[in-house]
């Protein structure tokens, strides 16, 4: 150590000649980086109030509040996140897990107050001046906590499908199902979409964690036809799934199917709690899903229940109307048998007419009508009574009950609903060439898009904007459909366009059978006049109150005959709701 060590540090004086690197804040503000995790902004229109940000926030900084101007609706809870900057740590986990990608961060970072109460903030609603900043931390769809892609469902290839009535959908393997179930963020927005308000997030979470028995038990809390719904439900829940906004919704239906299919003996799985037997009996007309649901829960509550069914097998429309490649018979039998094992009395081949109805009214303390819609709507065109014009509902019933039907080599199905698709695809399985003729466009079809795709894969042709004009006889036992084309006329915002016939053009189509599938209506002729006059009927459906009771005290109705939706899950929901209604009615405390 010597003079060198004393002098060397003086080299620091070189810095005097250099330009300082000081950033002259606050005179000159420096913008934060592109990805900076600064204050939040939220697109209130895109946000659906699912609360995932609340669930993932490590500091309990986010809570959900009502915001003026935003009303709850299906698929939107109406709540919006409120962030407390006295809690936030700007980790961005909320951004990375936001399913709709509405929440993001700006690169703004200065928030200074004299009082500590001014740090709570509703992004998007409270205007702070940095809403339009483009820079800041954002979620990358593929690299986030949200899994947007559905685990694909394996299906039979179309060539094989048309050969048999085997189930088209093959179902998830265990690992696939758990992976799919694990995508669910558990927000519960789907509950609002389900007519039956099934506890969807709970049973999906149970599947994800491998507790299949618990999962099925949760389903059976309010749906004794879980497997049916797992196969053929119209799954409106999926359209409200929070993941569906930016990706594929969780496959709620397939997951339900996976869980229920695992168990062949429901008696060992479902833990039922049976109430004390009560000295009241209820008659249920129609062994469809709605009637049997009511029967199941009434039986669990200790009532004596008798179900009257006109057909030789229980199941109603699910037995007679749904083709077996969608809903195999053993599956139905398994579920119905379990319901019957709870002490439900079933009388088959028992057509209730006016006389019998009077007797039932005397025998039972309450009656539930779940007869469904068994009378098809007709086309209302000349020549419709041609023997080669058949109705889809009769056709499907005959097929399902193995009755002989002759359809020939080429058929046209008129209609665009699920029944039309079923009729078309069944006809394909009989080897016929099938055309679906629909009066609107394909995108307007009420049928499930998967069904439409499935039909097309199987070689069904879909003709759009077809309006049948009349039916004529054709040679060689065939039939001729004379039709016109329609143009779509805009009906203003919010209403779907109406098909209007283009006058002056006529086309002909010669086929072996015309299958009419434009809907069904209720047949209420079994009601005796003294009852019928007291039951209000509105646009073809029985009018019921919020407890499913008709205007005739003690007579309840549900299912397709009483609601406008006419699907299985609504019928089940009606049945369940009627249980509560019947119970209250019998206790004399109907509200």
């Amino acid at each position, binding site marked *: 150590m010597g003079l060198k060590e004393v002098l060397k540090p003086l080299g620091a004086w070189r810095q005097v000649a250099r330009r300082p690197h000081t950033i002259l804040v606050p005179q000159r503000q420096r913008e934060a980086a592109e990805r900076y995790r600064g204050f939040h902004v939220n697109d209130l229109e895109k946000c659906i109030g699912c609360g995932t940000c609340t669930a993932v926030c490590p500091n309990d900084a986010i*809570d959900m509040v009502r915001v003026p101007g935003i009303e709850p609706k299906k698929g939107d*809870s109406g709540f919006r996140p409120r962030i407390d900057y006295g809690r936030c740590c700007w980790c961005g986990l909320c951004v990375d897990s936001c399913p709709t990608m509405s929440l993001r961060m700006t690169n703004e970072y200065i928030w200074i107050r004299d009082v500590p109460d001014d740090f709570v903030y509703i992004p998007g609603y409270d205007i702070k001046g940095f809403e339009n900043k483009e820079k800041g931390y954002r979620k990358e769809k593929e690299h986030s906590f949200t899994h947007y892609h559905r685990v694909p469902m394996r299906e039979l290839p179309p060539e094989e499908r048309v050969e048999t009535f085997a189930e088209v959908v093959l179902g998830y393997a265990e690992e696939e199902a758990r992976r799919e179930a694990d995508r669910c963020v558990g927000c519960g927005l789907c509950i609002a979409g389900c007519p039956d308000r099934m506890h969807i997030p709970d049973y999906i979470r149970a599947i994800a964690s491998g507790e299949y028995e618990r999962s099925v038990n949760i389903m059976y809390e309010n749906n004794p036809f879980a497997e049916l719904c797992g196969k053929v439900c119209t799954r409106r829940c999926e359209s409200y799934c929070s993941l569906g906004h930016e990706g594929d919704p969780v496959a709620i239906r397939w997951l339900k199917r996976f869980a229920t299919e695992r168990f062949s003996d429901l008696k060992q799985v479902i833990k039922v709690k049976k109430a004390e037997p009560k000295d009241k009996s209820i008659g249920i007309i129609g062994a469809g899903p709605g009637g049997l649901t009511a029967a199941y829960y009434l039986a669990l509550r200790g009532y004596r229940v008798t179900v009257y069914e006109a057909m030789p097998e229980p199941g109603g429309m699910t037995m007679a109307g749904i083709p077996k490649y969608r809903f195999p018979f053993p599956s139905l039998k398994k579920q119905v048998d379990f319901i019957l094992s709870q002490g439900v009395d079933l009388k088959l081949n028992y057509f209730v007419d006016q006389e019998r109805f009077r007797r039932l009214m005397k025998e039972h303390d309450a009656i539930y009508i779940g007869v469904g819609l068994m009378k098809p709507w007709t086309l209302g065109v000349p020549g419709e009574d041609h023997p080669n014009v058949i109705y889809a509902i009769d056709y499907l019933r005959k097929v399902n009950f193995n009755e002989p039907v002759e359809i020939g080599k080429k058929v046209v199905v008129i209609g665009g609903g699920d029944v039309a698709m079923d009729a078309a695809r069944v006809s394909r399985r009989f080897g016929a060439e099938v055309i679906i003729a629909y009066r609107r466009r394909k995108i307007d079809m009420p049928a499930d898009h998967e069904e439409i795709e499935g039909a097309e894969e199987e070689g069904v042709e879909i003709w759009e904007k077809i309006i049948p004009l009349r039916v004529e006889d054709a040679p060689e036992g065939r039939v001729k459909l004379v039709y016109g084309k329609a143009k779509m006329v805009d009906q203003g915002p919010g209403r779907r366009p109406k098909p209007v016939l283009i006058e002056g053009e006529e086309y002909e189509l010669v086929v072996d059978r015309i299958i009419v599938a434009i809907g069904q209506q209720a047949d209420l002729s079994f009601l005796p006049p003294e009852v019928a006059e007291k039951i209000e009927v509105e646009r073809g459906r029985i009018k019921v109150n919020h407890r499913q009771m008709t205007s005739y005290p003690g007579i309840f109705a549900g299912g397709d005959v009483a609601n406008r939706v006419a699907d299985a899950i609504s019928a089940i929901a009606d049945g369940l709701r009627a249980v509560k209604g019947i119970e209250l009615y019998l206790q004399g405390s109907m509200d």
Partner: protein
Amino acid sequence: MEILERLRERFEVLEEKVQRDDLIFVGTTGKNLIPMLVYLKEYEGFKTLVMISCVDWIEEGKFQLSYNLWAPKQKKNIIVKVFIDRKQPNFTTIYRIWPQAEVYEREIHEMFGVNFEGNPTQGEELILEDWDDIPPMRRDFDTLKYSMEKFGERAPKSRINIRREISEQYDEWRRK
């Protein structure tokens, strides 16, 4: 691994697990612990004590003490586990084998209430000051409740459960 065989020959080994090539877990009884640690230090080259940790298995009524040793030559860690009774959490100090054990034991005493007989400083406050509740790292200590009672909260949260709200909103008919 060979070392496990040698340990099994000499001591009571309750459980063993080779987690990685360089990390072994060995469970033993309280009586065997100190001889095993001395053996590992003197004959197996595990010269260094990396840390002592405590795990509260409240459901089983046990505390797990984990002694993490490192062998500088073999570049291996071994974690010796021993379970003690949660109701009478008494154990023996090992600070005579490794001096830093004294502070680890002092911390565990403060955070879990485990008593290490023979540790000269264990009653002294290390981290907490004026602590007035059960040792905070025990599982039955509710830190959120304690914090809210003692330190309060500004701007209480709405605590809305979206799922319940939705169920109720659309579910009038089932509520009654």
